[in-house]
């Protein structure tokens, strides 16, 4: 069924878009207190993603909605089965989402520091927990013949799933640190670059381990495929480019690492959607979990019309806010009415 495969690709693309775009937002959220010594610097870091993060997070919402609409059983089994992970994920998303808006709204150091902590922790939880959930799809959890999850909480935290989470956290950290380096000036930029260089080695190691592990969990042996090879080469390139202070190209490299890591994960998953550790006959697949042909056709039309439009106006947003942000902009106490 060709349309179901098309929607698998759409879903994989949405998750990839989410990690490429929101990836650096999450990194900035985790790092904003570490790249600055003062409030002006922290605000500079946060304001590099200020106009962007909300639109970027929609990629997650649409990814989940696409799963619901195109593969209702995937959405149903995964979201009910991974309940505890998703509760924590929601808590992370909520505290992170409001902390952007709330942290600067009261003139009190304690208030601001509280939201800084929540922003940092929330930004850490999101990639970690999404990674655990995605890793679980490929690693497999107990699922019976009626596509119901039959395991318990321990089944959600397999070694591979946790490592997927850790890898995504590291990738977001590297992506975010590189982004801050690219988008700020002065002391904040210097500290972000130094941090990016320190984050690079563990990230390289994680990617080097993650690609063959993924490929072998998927049953393809330890030899990586082309996408995975590109991911490995790109993460090495990112480390090298950061060492040479080419933050622009380094950002291109971290973008490629994230994109190929997520895409190759989904390529390894295909045609399965969710592996059953009980019996591979109970796997959820593109074929046994998709919506009917008419629903998929309608949504394909909607996606083909609106997706380019979304890319166009989000791209334009990045163009509008292309200038670097400097801490000096935030030294003045006057903040308009906001």
């Amino acid at each position, binding site marked *: 069924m060709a349309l179901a495969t098309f929607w698998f690709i759409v879903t994989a693309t949405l998750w990839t878009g989410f990690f490429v775009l929101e990836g650096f937002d999450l990194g900035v959220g985790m790092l904003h207190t570490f790249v600055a010594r003062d409030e002006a610097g922290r605000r500079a870091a946060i304001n590099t993603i200020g106009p962007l993060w909300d639109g970027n997070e929609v990629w997650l919402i649409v990814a989940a909605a696409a799963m619901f609409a195109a593969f*209702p059983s995937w959405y149903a089994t995964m979201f009910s089965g991974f309940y505890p992970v998703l509760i924590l994920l*929601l808590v992370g998303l*909520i505290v992170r989402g*409001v902390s952007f808006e709330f942290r600067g709204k009261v003139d009190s150091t304690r208030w601001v520091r509280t939201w800084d902590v929540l922003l940092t922790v929330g930004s850490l939880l999101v990639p970690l927990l999404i990674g655990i959930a995605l890793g679980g799809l490929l690693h497999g959890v107990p699922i019976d013949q009626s596509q119901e999850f039959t395991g318990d909480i321990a089944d959600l935290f397999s070694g591979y799933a946790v490592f997927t989470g850790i890898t995504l956290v590291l990738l977001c950290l590297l992506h975010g640190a590189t982004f801050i380096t690219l988008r700020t000036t002065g002391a904040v930029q210097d500290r972000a670059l130094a941090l990016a260089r320190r984050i690079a080695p563990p990230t390289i190691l994680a990617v080097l381990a993650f690609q063959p592990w993924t490929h072998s969990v998927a049953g393809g042996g330890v030899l990586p495929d082309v996408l995975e090879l590109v991911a490995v080469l790109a993460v090495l390139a990112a480390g090298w480019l950061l060492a040479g202070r080419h933050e622009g190209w380094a950002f291109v490299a971290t973008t490629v690492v994230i994109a190929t890591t997520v895409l190759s994960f989904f390529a390894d998953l295909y045609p399965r959607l969710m592996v059953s550790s009980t019996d591979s006959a109970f796997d959820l697949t593109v074929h046994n979990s998709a919506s009917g042909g008419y629903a998929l056709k309608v949504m394909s039309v909607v996606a083909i019309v*609106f997706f380019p439009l979304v890319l166009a106006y989000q791209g334009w947003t990045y163009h509008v806010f292309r200038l670097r942000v400097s801490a000096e902009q935030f030294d003045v106490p006057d903040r308009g009415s*906001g």
Partner: protein
Amino acid sequence: MSQIDLARLQFAMTSIYHFLFVPVTIGLGFLTALLQTGWHRSGRADLLQLTRFFGTLLVINIAVGVVTGLVQEFQFGMDWSAYSRTVGDVFGAPLAMEGLAAFFLESTFLGLWLFGWDRLPPRVHLATIWLVAVGGALSAAFIMAANSWMQHPVGYTVDQATGRPQLDDVWKLFTNPVFLRGYLHVILASLVTGSVVMLAVSAWQLRKGSSPLAFHAAARLALVVLVPVILAAMLVGSELGVTEGKYQPMKIAGAEAQWDTCQPCSFSLFQISGGKNDMTPTQIIAIPHLLSLLATNHWNGKVLGLNAVQAQYEQQYGPGSYIPNIFIQYWSMRVMAYLAVVVLLVGLWGLWLLWRKRLSAAHRFHRVAVWTAVLPFLMNTAGWLLTENGRQPWIVQGIQLTRNGVSPSVSTATVATSLVVFFLLYAALAVVALVLITRYARKQLAPPPAEDTPVPALTY
């Protein structure tokens, strides 16, 4: 409490909470866009100040609305996986469309509006706030199309192999009579909410005497929008009642606690007792013919009683009770309608003061207007209780019972834990949001930027 009770409680709590913020986002979004349009056309500095003042309230509100919306999207799969599995083919499509066509628009242009004050040409910047408002309203359209399908399923066939509904005509989802009236009703209710909030804040400011000219302008805008909009909301709501009465007779019979079929039917202003199984409540002040008129649009219209519909449903769907909680049904309808009358009267009072040019000094009105802010939130909540409780025991009318929609693999303890987590988190969030909104609503207007300098961005 069983898993299903807890899951229902969780859905009710998170939905009601989410919908405290949604109508403010939609209503205040359009009003802020109107203020900025006014500034753009006239160049009046006070309209710019007001745009940024109410824009700040708007974004605090949007922040909570967005994060609580995430919970809504995830919850279908987490707590209602059997429902999601059964109806995802139909119900999922409008949700995916919402993300692609509306939510991307709203979120991306919100960023552009907040941070684009000094980057975008004024005309383009004005367009961004309109796109935020349109995106919010469009978002509600897709969600309402999905919800209306649960009230009155259309545009589907049942797959013979799986027994699940499959979409076969997407156009019917968006021409569903329940959707057309329900969506209009929600948009009008949102404009009511936004304008009452703007009126209340302006009244507070006028009472304090800060920037009286500016807040007089804001109060005037709020009143001019409020009165026609609440009248329209009441009319459309009454039409929606007739439509729902046709497809969901239990909902309307329940709203009057009408156990026996009647023709013509009177409407009781109040009743005493009349709980779940009390078929003989004491009705106080019954207005003849009014229920017939409300439920059927006819002076002598016939309204099927709960017992008659119950007998019919038992024949159609098998044994069991198909009667919703009548107490909630009866009172949610009255709370919504009576408070609407109160809001209308406050609006008319304000318009009269405006006409007599006494709005700025009318201290008694200011005091009343401030407290009126609470009412739209009660009305919105009551309206949703009426709609959702009235569908029970169905999760999708005639297709799936609520008790069959719950997740089979999720334990009672898990739902209970998450209910506690969300309750605490939402309570904390409510306190913070309320403190921030009241704090910013009571601030003085920030001075306008000097001539020839760009308007600064609203940064974090």
